[in-house]
Structures are given as C-alpha cells and as structure tokens.
C-alpha cells in the first residue's frame, strides 16, 4: 500500500472533474450537508460561545496532555480497562494482533475508526490471516470495493446508489438494478447482523476519552459500535492520544457541537460511554502516538490536534467538494487532512497544503476553532524551506522577487512584456497555457494605470501648470 505511487492532488482532481455530472452531484450533496449544519448551528443562540468554549477546553488539553493521559490510564485501569501504548502505526497494529492472537480470534468486526485507516490495520491483519469486517454501512461498501473511505464521516460519499447496487449485487447477491437505498441498507443489515452475532472481538474508534473518569465515548448513528462491542468477548478501542478531554461534564460541550457540525443532527443516535467491561469480558484501549507528539511540538501546527473529526471542513471546502476525498491520498482528506498529512510524511504530502484557495471557510465551520487555512499557509512556507517544491518554481519565484523589489526593473519589465501577466498569478513556468485552457486572457489596455496617472493626476496636472 505504502509503496504505491502517489498521484498528486491536482492530477487526481483533474481526473475527478472529467465527469461533470458526478462532480456536480458530489458538490451539491456535500453543500446540502453544509446547509444542514448551518441550519442546526444557527438554532443554537450560544453556538459561537460553544465553539470558543470547546476551543479553550482543547487548548487546556494540549497544554496538559501528559498529566491528563496519565490520569486517564490510571482511572481506566481502576475501571478494569487494559491500556496499551503504541508509538507508531506498526506498534498499534502489532498490539491489536497480539490481543486477537491471545484470544485465538480469526475474525473481527470493526466500527468506524479513522485511526485504523491511518495505520492500515485491515491490510496488516489480512496478511496475518485475520479477517476484518467494517460494519459502518459506508465503510462496509468501500471495503467490499477495496477502496479507502473518501470522507471521515460519510465514507462512501463518492459513490452513487447505482455503484452500491452493483457492488452489493456482486458480493451479497442483491437484485441487479435495484437501486433503492432502503432495500440496499436492509440487505447490508441482514448480512452484518450475522457478523455481529458471530464475532468474538470488536474494534471501535474513540470520539472522546475522559481523563477524570477513565471512560471513553463512541458516537454512531447506526448502532454498529454497540452491536459489535456488546456481543463480543473482547472490545478493542483505538484512539490517538488527542482524543482526551479533562472531565465528564465537558462532553456536554462536545456532544452539542459534534453532530451538528458533522451532519446537522442535534446529536448522534447513540453516544455510548464505556467505563467498565462486562463481567468476564475485556476492554482494551490502545493509545496511539504515530507522529502526534511531533505535531504537538510544532507551535504553528499543534492546534490541528484539537480536531474532533466532524468533517465540517470537508463539507464546506469548495475544493474538496470538487475533487473528492481520494484525491488527498491520505486517511483524513480535505482541509484538516491537508494540515495533518505533512506531519506524517512531508515529501509524500507536499501537494496537499497547496490544494486550497485559502478561502477560510474551513476555519469558520470548525467547532474547535482550528485555524485551518492559516496552517495551510504556514505549511506552504515550511514545505518550501524544506525543499519540497520543484526547483523550477523556486527559480521563477526568485526572479519574481528580484523584479518586484526593484521599481525601475519592474516598470521596464511591465512595459516591454507585461511582466505581471506572465508572472502573476504565479505561473511557475511563465506559461499562461493553463490559464488559457478554459479561460480567456484579460484584454491588454492601451495604457497602464501608472501611465494614465502620469498624464492625468492632479499632481501631474499641477506640475504641468507650473
């Protein structure tokens, strides 16, 4: 998987845009989700105060991460939860495998966990002969199609019902050509019910872990995390360490924000608080670093760890809506993915902070007030300094810098060849062809503003009169 060649965002987006109808549908569907979010948020008079409060709580968490994590572990252990620590994806996968081996489990049911996507757990376990079935409907669909999810909340949002129908016909034997979402969902329900009833191990993600009590909260609409966890002997919950919050009462703030930001629902159908295992059963929590402590040390970027994975920044992002989640080649796509991914691998993800117009809508919808678009800007500066941009671009930029710093040269360049139009907007190779593919060039006027000003300004007229 990791050896696959990365297709850069712009290239993947170009491909995505070949099917105009599909792009329109993708854009409109996600915009509809953004509108639902607006409607829901605008019904809460305290909304902006809630965001500010959530942001402050998360700032407090970042500043006290060490102590809160220690508290969480101690309290979770008191509750009878077994806590594991994984420095990276590899160790995370090994720990999960070790737990499964200990219980002689060959099949596991999993509810949505973006962390396990980040760690490529399914592939790892498949190599070890363990079958994992994703139970969230969207994840189940993309898993059958051997695709990664394209959105953290709506994993199959890149697909249409015809695609799902085709996939289910092939794998579940549903009626060919029956596109009814009700029918397709019912088919998956029946299929997965058997899975829930026969698995001894269930893996879930974690939305919030509470330092004060050692419990953790998992939110779903489908009830799949609960169906898995309450029927299995072993429940494994995997979390990045940033999922921590200080106290139980802080859930009041985050549960008000999460679903409204994500889909416009007032709350997810189920917000399940796991504090102790059932008698004779086990709950394991795997706390994962995988680059997060590095990000925590980057002053400009540590705020990205405040993220509660609502996906609002994706739904509002005009670029995401028109390029699709897969174009970001990272487990977490969209604006938030573009500020998280370079931390994991700068050279592989150097294109992502540039896949934005810096319009800033992401920052405005973020329920924990991450300065997403400012971080995109700052990542660009870092990536350039670390040499992750093409040399040709650097040379062009240097030329531009020299000309623009020198008014005499600039004016000469402007006159002789319309320097600006050749070089701005930033045409790296001084070629306007990309502009011209689908756009006309601006007409060249007879005189520039400064030429007009020389002749017509009050100053120059006064001078002439002298």
């Amino acid at each position, binding site marked *: 998987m990791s050896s696959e060649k990365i297709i850069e965002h712009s290239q993947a987006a170009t491909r995505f845009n070949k099917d105009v109808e599909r792009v329109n549908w993708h854009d409109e569907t996600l915009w509809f989700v953004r509108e639902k979010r607006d409607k829901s948020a605008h019904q809460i008079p305290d909304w902006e105060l809630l965001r500010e409060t959530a942001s402050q709580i998360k700032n407090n968490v970042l500043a006290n991460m060490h102590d809160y994590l220690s508290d969480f572990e101690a309290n979770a252990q008191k509750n009878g939860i077994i806590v594991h620590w994984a420095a990276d994806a590899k160790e995370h996968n090994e720990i999960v495998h070790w737990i499964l081996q200990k219980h002689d489990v060959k099949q596991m049911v999993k509810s949505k966990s973006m962390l396990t996507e980040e760690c490529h757990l399914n592939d790892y376990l498949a190599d070890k002969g363990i079958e994992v079935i994703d139970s969230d409907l*969207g994840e189940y*669909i993309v898993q059958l199609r051997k695709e990664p999810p394209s959105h953290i909340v709506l994993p199959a949002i890149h697909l*249409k019902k015809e695609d799902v129908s085709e996939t289910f016909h092939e794998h579940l034997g549903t009626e060919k050509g029956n596109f009814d979402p009700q029918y397709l969902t019912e088919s998956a329900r029946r299929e*997965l019910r058997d899975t829930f009833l026969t698995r001894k191990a269930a893996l879930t993600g974690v939305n919030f872990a509470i330092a004060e009590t050692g419990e953790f909260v998992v939110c779903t609409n*489908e*009830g799949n995390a609960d169906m898995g966890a309450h029927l299995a002997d072993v429940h494994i919950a995997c979390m990045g360490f940033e999922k921590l919050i200080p106290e139980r*009462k802080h859930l009041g703030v985050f549960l008000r924000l999460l679903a409204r930001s994500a*889909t416009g629902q007032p709350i997810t*159908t*189920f917000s399940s608080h796991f504090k102790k295992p059932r008698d004779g059963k086990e709950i394991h929590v795997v706390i994962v670093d995988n680059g997060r402590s590095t990000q925590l040390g980057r002053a400009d970027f540590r705020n990205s760890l405040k993220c509660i994975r609502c996906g609002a920044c994706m739904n509002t992002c005009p670029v995401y809506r028109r390029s699709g989640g897969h174009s970001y080649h990272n487990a977490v796509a969209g604006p938030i993915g573009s500020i998280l991914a370079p931390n994991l691998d700068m050279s592989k993800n150097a294109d992502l902070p540039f896949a934005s117009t810096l319009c800033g809508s992401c920052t405005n919808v973020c329920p924990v007030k991450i300065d997403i678009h400012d971080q995109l800007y700052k990542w660009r500066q870092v990536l350039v300094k670390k040499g992750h941009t093409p040399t040709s671009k650097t040379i062009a930029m240097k030329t531009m810098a020299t000309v623009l710093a020198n008014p005499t040269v600039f004016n000469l360049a402007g006159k002789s060849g319309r320097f600006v139009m050749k070089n701005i907007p930033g045409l790296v190779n001084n070629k306007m062809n990309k502009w011209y593919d689908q756009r006309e060039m601006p007409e060249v006027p007879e005189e520039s503003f400064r030429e007009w000003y020389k002749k017509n300004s009050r100053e120059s007229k006064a001078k002439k009169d002298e």
Partner: protein
Amino acid sequence: MSSKAEILNKIKQSQPNLAAELPDLNVLGSDQFDVLEMYKTVLRNIGGNPIEVADYSEAIAYIKNNYPLEKRIITTIPELSEIAVLDWTNDDPHSLKDVELTIINAHFGVAENSALWVTDDILGQRVAPFITQYLAIIVNKKDIIPTMHQAYDRIGNQEYGFGTFIAGPSKTADIEQSLVLGAHGARGLTVFLKD
C-alpha cells in the same frame, strides 16, 4: 511491548507551556423554551415517536395496539410484566437476537436533541436497546431537561459500567445521503412521556 514512557516523555517535551485555563461552563445552556414541546418536536424530526401517557397502563395499552404481542418482547420494568418478559437479563446476550421489542426506562431526556440517558443498571443487558427490532423507552415528563449541560450536571459522578444517550432510531444516510431508519439497531423508537 509498551512504548508508554517514550510517548509520555515526548509529550512532556512537546506540549505548550501555557496557562490555558478551563472555561466556565455555567454560562452555557440557558436557552429558554418549553422543554416538553421541544422534546417532542426534535424527536419527531429525527424519526422517533413521542407518546404522552398518564401511567404504565396507558403505555401497555398503546403497546398492545401497536406491536405484535406474539413476538418476543422484553423489559426491565416489573409493571410491564403483562406484555413483556423480565427473566432475560442474565442470559447470553446473543440469545436476544430474536427480540422484537425492548422496553426500558430512561433516567432523563434532553429537550434540545431528544436524547435519553440510560445506564446498564436499567438496561438489563447492554446490547438490549441495540439488538432489538424496535425500542420503546419510558421517561417521566418531569425528567425532561433543556440541554446537554444540564444532562451532565445531572449525571455528575454517577457510577456506571456503561451508559448511553439514545436519540431516535438507528439510522444511516451512507447511500447517497438518503435517510434510512434501522441501520443496525432498532428500526423505530417510541418514547413514552409519562406524567
């Protein structure tokens, strides 16, 4: 196998040295509205069915009229023994796979999102509200509170092994954003709002 010390150490070095105080939560959740009306409106909007009843007998009557009594109905509420069985709480949870209707009490409900708070002491079994085809929850009208802030004030330090907020029936919109009720959990939720 654990990398605990290494991770915690790195976090200690990386975390910002800032006095980031925790905010005051008391300023939140003072929204003014009729809690019962809000509760019912929100519940309907998310696919649930609010029914006001004076007492358990009215709830029983409603269930008799609206659910197939010949199928398996379970409850943890002794007053409902006429229509539902009570002796399942120590069984293997897998044996609940054929349950048609689970009827339980909730500690309280939250008007702003229609969520009901339940914990394992009143659930009988953790899987009971999920594995059933349909779910009915009984809550006292006086136990409807405005927002999630009051909810956590009320939960306070309550001890539980498992607790969950349930808001409406299980649902998904993963196929083209079309809402389908009954993804993996209950296909329908009736909430009895009791005097």
